């Protein structure tokens, strides 16, 4: 549904997006991850036809955005960063304008608006000027605008940025409801969001893809993958450390948070497989009768992967810009 081919964007000497290629199929939600300034928004602006690429192109439902922008944009819903709208309009006027400009006749427009307003729960504020609405409502107005024509392709730049946890949950739910029959790209720097709604994730840094895969596959690249972590009282730490170190070929990592301490046990050089390690730790806990608050076989940590991949030092040539 969305095919991005060798997309490049340069602003003067600065390369914001460097030769990006990927595809998103219908039914997939692609999470775009990356630190601020990584090129997420620039990429989205090129996919939606707001910026012209320096090189490469994107296709929406097979239509080239550079060659036939209007045909491609008909298939596309876009929530720009910050969910801009015209502040003097009410959500009703705003959505009426969008449906009219997208060529809906009156009955079709009404049906489309009812659907979009229902999904974004805007009923209560339909006739209030947008600039009097809270940030959460404004974001939902932007979302309603993006989905009002039921597009096959949806591009959303930080759809949950600045929302409170309840509002985040609602927006995520709305995205999940639509996900089955759309190709969706969202950008975010909230990692839990990727786990919550994305079927695929891509980490980009300085305009390049540094990692790509399902969220769990990405998380598995974390050094924590396969480690056994146990949470116990900090008082028990000395004793636990001593005994855990006796398990052959392991290394410990300790993180203390007040009265609670997390001890992660790593198998060195893959000498021990994860479940065997877990069994050994469990046995030890049983023998010593420690009261352990939590015990887990780590499936990897996305934030750890994110940090490792995007914190490389910049090459000196780019340091100036």
């Amino acid at each position, binding site marked *: 549904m969305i095919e991005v081919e060798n997309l490049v964007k340069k602003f003067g000497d600065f390369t914001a997006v460097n030769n990006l290629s990927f595809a998103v199929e219908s039914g997939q939600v692609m999470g775009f991850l990356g630190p601020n300034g990584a090129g997420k928004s620039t990429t989205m602006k090129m996919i939606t036809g707001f910026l012209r690429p320096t090189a490469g192109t994107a296709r929406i439902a097979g239509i080239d955005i550079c060659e036939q922008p*209007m045909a491609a944009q008909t298939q596309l819903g876009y929530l720009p960063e*910050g969910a801009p709208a015209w502040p003097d309009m009410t959500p009703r006027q705003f959505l009426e304008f969008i449906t009219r*400009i997208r060529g809906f006749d009156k009955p079709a427009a009404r049906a489309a608006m009812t659907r979009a307003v229902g999904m974004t729960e805007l009923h209560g504020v339909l006739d209030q000027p947008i600039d009097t609405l809270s940030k959460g409502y404004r974001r939902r107005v932007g979302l309603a605008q993006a989905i009002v024509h039921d597009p096959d392709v949806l591009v959303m730049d930080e759809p949950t940025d600045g929302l409170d946890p309840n509002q985040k949950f609602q927006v995520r739910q709305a995205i999940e409801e639509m996900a089955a029959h759309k190709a969706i790209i969202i950008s975010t720097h909230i990692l839990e969001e990727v786990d919550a709604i994305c079927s695929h994730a891509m980490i980009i840094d300085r305009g390049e893809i540094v990692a790509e895969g399902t969220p769990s596959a990405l998380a598995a690249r974390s050094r924590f993958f396969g480690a056994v972590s146990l949470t116990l009282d900090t008082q028990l730490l000395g004793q636990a450390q001593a005994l855990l170190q006796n398990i052959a070929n392991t290394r410990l990592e300790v993180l203390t948070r007040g009265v609670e301490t997390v001890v992660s046990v790593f198998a060195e050089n893959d000498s021990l497989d994860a479940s065997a390690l877990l069994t050994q730790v469990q046995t030890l806990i049983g023998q010593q009768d420690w009261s352990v608050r939590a015990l887990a076989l780590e499936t990897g940590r996305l934030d750890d992967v994110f940090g490792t991949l995007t914190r490389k030092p910049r090459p000196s040539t780019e340091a100036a810009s």
Partner: protein
Amino acid sequence: MSQLWTIIRREFASYFSTPLAFVFIVVFLLANGLATFYLGEWFAMGQADLTSFFMFHPWLYLFFLPAISMRLWAEERRNGSIELLLTLPVPLWAIVFGKYFAALAFSGLALALTFPVWISVNYLGSPDNGVIIASYLGSLMLAGGYLAIGSCLSALTRNQVIAFVISVVACFLFTVSGAPLVLDVFRGWAPQVLINTLASFSLLTHFRAITGGVIDLRDVVFFLTLIGGFLVATMVIVDMKKGEGA
């Protein structure tokens, strides 16, 4: 075509969403009245015509119309809504012309609301209404010229104040390019062709010709070309910014 109409309607309605439109119209009408009756000494002239009324329009428009046109594009950029507008399946010309026609309709409305002056002169005497109608049309075309220049310059920046200032300066240059003040600088050393060309770019010269009561096709063509030229330039600038990413 229906998309153009949709854009015009949205833009036109946006003028009235704040009290600004009413303030603008009231101040415009007051300034018009003051200029006509005090500066133009309409009563002392003892003539039932609107010469002194239309005489000041270029100078009033010079400040009033950039105040309308400054927001056309600069505000969309500042607000971020330009991203929304330019990613909707609408041709660029429909957006550029739609915004322009809405601004023109709004200034046309302000101009139309000066009708009591027209009624007054008809009550006081028997003016040549043909000349007055021609002058109103000329005034609207003049407004159209200023707004087209302003639209183009507003597309260059995200700052409305800058858009206003450079529009006033540009409109001023286009207004006075035919005045002796400017032409005398060139006279004596520049070739006559240059002087003629310069003079022919003056909005004032063409406006005066129309308010004289003669709608010459050449003056109409001048205004339409100027307006068309600056709107096409607006499209080019907006499109260029897509490539720059600014």
